[in-house]
């Protein structure tokens, strides 16, 4: 099982590799990737350094080109693919049909991974992408139960990668318009979910108000643990209940340490750590714990159990210091 870690910059990439990542994923510093946070991601020159460093370590490096090209500007996305092919990355992570088509026809030997933004959750979708573009792997959206992952793994024509840890996206990725509905910026078109420039915190009468493009997402006590403000993790009221509640989900992170044996037995090939926007310290901490967990499992699968100190270490870097199994656990659904 591969441990796949995020890198928002070279510092994160290096700590991830030193802490035991088998592979790194990263994006360019423009709108060809769906996590275009200010101050993060890679210029072509930095990408070259990243590839060189990763190869020296004998590890793999994947480039995400997972937004959907703007009409009239498609050339920029094609150029990103050309660049990646010439830089020698091990795989491209792509969501858009036209980009898969371009990459497959121009660089047939370059491995393609279907991005989670393509939102492929079933055998039909995976078969289509495999037959038409020979994708090698697909990243599953965080909407399947463990049983559904297991069932899909039995019939899938491609390798499966799942999210193992990190901020919990509760919607089918790539098909969520909540951010663009409130802010006008969409991950699909090269923005990010809840762009930082639209986030504003106010302290009023002993309470902290969290606003996204002036919409009140949450109201909390000053010392409450908070996650990054996204529409789906806000507190709202309904006609039946005037008490504000997390109607969709509370600020929480996905943590699947306890599912590791099941994921391994299902033949999931890669465990993805979320967080290209997070600090090198986060990347290092999470990578270290997961390296230990995977090695512990592999050395004696039958004896494996998620250790308390691992979970504690991960909780510290989790949203609201709370973790969940999310959709993998049927009861969550």
């Amino acid at each position: 099982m591969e441990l796949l870690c995020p890198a928002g910059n070279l510092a994160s990439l290096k700590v991830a590799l030193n802490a035991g990542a088998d592979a790194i994923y990263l994006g360019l510093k423009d709108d060809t990737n769906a996590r275009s946070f200010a101050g993060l991601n890679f210029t072509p020159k930095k990408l070259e350094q990243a590839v060189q460093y990763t190869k020296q370590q004998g590890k793999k490096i994947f480039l995400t080109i997972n937004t959907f090209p703007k009409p009239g500007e498609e050339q920029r996305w094609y150029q990103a693919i050309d660049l990646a092919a010439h830089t020698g990355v091990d795989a491209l992570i792509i969501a858009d049909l036209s980009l898969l088509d371009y990459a497959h026809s121009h660089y047939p030997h370059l491995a393609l991974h279907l991005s989670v933004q393509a939102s492929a959750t079933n055998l039909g979708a995976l078969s289509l992408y495999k037959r038409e573009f020979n994708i090698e792997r697909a990243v599953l959206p965080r909407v399947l139960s463990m049983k559904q992952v297991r069932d899909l793994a039995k019939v899938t024509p491609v390798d499966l990668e799942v999210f193992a840890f990190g901020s919990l996206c509760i919607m089918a990725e790539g098909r969520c318009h909540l951010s663009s509905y409130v802010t006008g910026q969409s991950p699909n078109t090269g923005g990010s979910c809840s762009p930082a420039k639209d986030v504003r915190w106010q302290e009023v009468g002993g309470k902290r108000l969290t606003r996204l493009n002036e919409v009140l997402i949450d109201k909390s006590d000053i010392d409450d643990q908070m996650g990054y403000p996204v529409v789906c993790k806000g507190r709202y009221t309904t006609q039946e209940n005037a008490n504000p509640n997390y109607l969709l989900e509370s600020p929480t992170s996905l943590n699947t340490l306890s599912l590791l044996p099941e994921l391994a037995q299902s033949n999931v090939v890669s465990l993805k750590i979320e967080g290209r926007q997070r600090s090198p310290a986060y990347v290092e901490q999470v990578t270290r714990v997961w390296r230990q967990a995977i090695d512990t499992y592999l050395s004696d699968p039958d004896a494996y159990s998620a250790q308390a100190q691992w979970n504690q270490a991960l909780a510290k870097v989790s949203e609201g210091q709370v973790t969940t199994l999310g959709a993998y656990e049927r009861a969550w659904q």
Partner: protein
Amino acid sequence: MKVSLGPIQYCWPKAKVIDFYQQVATSDIPLVYLGETVCSRRREIKFADYLELAQMLKASGKQVVLSTLALIEAQSEFSALKQQIDNGEFIIEANDMGAVEVAKSLKLPFVCGPTINNYNAATLKKLASWGMQRFVMPLELSEEWLEQIMVALPPAQIEVEVFGHGYMPLAHSARCFTARNKGLTKDSCKTICIDYPKGILAQTQEAQPLLRLNGIQTQSATHIDLRDQQVEMERMGVDYFRVSPSSVDALVIASNLKASQPQSSDGANGYWFKQAGFNRVV
């Protein structure tokens, strides 16, 4: 530009649905989509019932398209999908790439619904080569975006439809928010969404209407309304203006749409003008 009626996105009692489509049959709406797009646990109306309604609408002169689920997770849902697409009579609206695959392998034409990520002309041409006849523009795109796509498409190869009126489907999750709101899980939901014919309105703590919870789907609290853009859409060559039903009023709205008669509109139109979707640009 003609008018289309999108699928009912809510869980309505069977009698109400039948009554609704009987009224559709006597309307002047030329194109009707119907079918369950949100949740396979809603069994009030079975596929056979939809097929019967589709035949009734066809007999009354409508063009009919069967809409399929937006989020296909279980293998049983994928098997059901094959049966729906291979119905021998009606084309389908694919709302997931799994449905595109089935239609393509059966060599059947299809429509791509608004939840398929069609953001550029090269993608649309590829889908057209697989049998796509028409696509509904993804909700978050703008007039300018659409116009550039349409300029780059071969004339008359692909029909274009715009989601012009109704509550916007913004996201789909594994979790059922309606059940959760009632303290139930998805597996014990008792199809509680039947009690909420327009979803559950969620407001911010400043009483700003924001979202509408509809089972696993999250909708906009405010309806999109692009009725005053019809002349513009006509000029661009948009083929269909979609009205998404939330009540029988939708039929009145759809029947009154005439591009030649400029209409005022309310509701949200931000996406069309490259802004946040909930904005109203005047």
